[in-house]
């Protein structure tokens, strides 16, 4: 069953179209990597999926009871966050914001969820540490735990390994795959790293101001587009 359906969606800024005719669907448990060069419309698509930007044409529909506010989003880090004075516990707990409803403060249920997700990401011993003192890899795990607090069904990850060393990046990829396989949480990941994308993802969406390819990883590997994008090297 499709939990997300993008039907001929186009996006424009000030009347200039930046991304045209994106048409794909995501089933529960899928792992979709969105690839493409800089400026190909990947960030715009993310904004669209999060309803932060409305499509100029077409539509994006959620299914399987998934609500707009229940997508676990892992944004790219901003300058503000790197030196932000906050404990790991505070950061992860803020992922439960969408379950507050009309209440003013987090309850036991949210605190339990935050604890569980810290454990899931293997960073529970960091809970009282300050976020700004953590390594890049640890910070990303904390943000992934926060994203997991916000969702039970779909993670949306915006270049989650950018700036990480190869070891930390590998660990991050494995954690994401684990969450996808063990908890059945669908994943949409924007990435530059095409080799890792075809290795981990079940589906690939290749953008270049429009949809150049959508299909399974296996199909993508055989496509002429992949060969060109990979610079002729074998996948």
């Amino acid at each position: 069953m499709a939990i997300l359906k993008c039907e001929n969606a186009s996006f424009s800024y000030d009347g200039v179209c930046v991304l045209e005719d994106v048409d794909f669907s995501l089933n529960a448990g899928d792992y979709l990597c969105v690839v493409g060069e800089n400026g190909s419309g990947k960030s715009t698509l993310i904004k669209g999926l999060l309803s932060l930007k409305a499509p100029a044409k077409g539509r994006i529909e959620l299914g399987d009871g998934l609500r707009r506010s229940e997508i676990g989003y892992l944004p790219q880090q901003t300058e503000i966050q790197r030196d932000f004075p906050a404990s790991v516990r505070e950061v992860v707990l803020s992922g439960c914001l969408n379950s507050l409803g009309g209440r003013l403060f987090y309850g036991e249920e949210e605190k339990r969820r935050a604890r569980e997700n810290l454990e899931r990401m293997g960073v529970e011993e960091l809970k009282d540490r300050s976020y700004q003192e953590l390594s890049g890899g640890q910070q990303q795990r904390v943000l992934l735990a926060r994203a997991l607090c916000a969702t039970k069904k779909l993670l949306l990850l915006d270049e989650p390994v950018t700036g990480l060393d190869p070891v930390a990046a590998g660990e991050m990829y494995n954690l994401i795959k684990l969450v996808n396989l063990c908890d059945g949480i669908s994943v949409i990941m924007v990435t530059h790293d095409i080799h890792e994308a075809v290795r981990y993802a079940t589906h690939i969406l290749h953008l270049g101001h429009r949809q150049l390819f959508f299909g399974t990883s296996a199909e993508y590997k055989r496509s002429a587009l992949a060969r060109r994008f990979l610079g002729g090297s074998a996948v």
Partner: protein
Amino acid sequence: MSLLSMFSYHFMQRALLVGVLVSLCAALLGVSLVLKRYSMIGDGLSHVGFGALAIASAFHLAPLAVAVPVVVAAAIVLLRIRGSGRVKGDAAIAIISSSALAIGVIVVSVTSGMNTEVSSYLFGSILSLSRGDTVLSVILSLAVIAVFLLLYPRLFAVTFDETFARATGARAELYNTLLAVLTAITVVLGMRMMGALLISSLIIFPALSAMRLCRSFRGVILCAAAISVVCFVLGMAASFAFETPSGASVVVMDLLAFAICSLAGKKN
């Protein structure tokens, strides 16, 4: 003259009461503003406040009744400009604040002449608080503190990561506006005592000092609130003892606190 005798003066009691509450508000809001890189908004708003007070006094209107709505409106405009990305945010603040200052100076000089009143607007005076002002200040600052405490989880989420908060359904725009409005009210309340040129330090200093010492958001907020109140009281005491201007004395205390916190933070 004993230092304790300062508590026996009516105007001092008023000034201390309003000052402590405004210091608390400023410190709470300051942490969010500094972290969101909105520090200059506080500064810009105080200049707008100066213009509004000058006009109110020229037309013999109640100063707070004029200044609060004007500065709140300015805060919302500044936030919009910053968000739209069309005009550079800091340039926009500079334009608005210097224009308001210029208009204020002209209004004052045409009506009452450049006299002690201007100086008291710019650098503050504890004698400027009337009884009505005091009551209004106490109510407004209690409201600011209550709103901040009750919305704490939401304000944290929006301060730490606005995009994430918006993606998970938080009305970030609303909370940003709320922050700006609360800041506007705090700036106006504190301005008459601290002065238009000095009030922004009440917002920025405690937050910066607390960040040198604490590593969690809650810790920074509590620490900033404590530093802010202590510095205010010490500043007033110093002003009373050495007959120095009150606003400037408080700022110097904040500067000292910042220096001490920076040193202590380095040692850790």
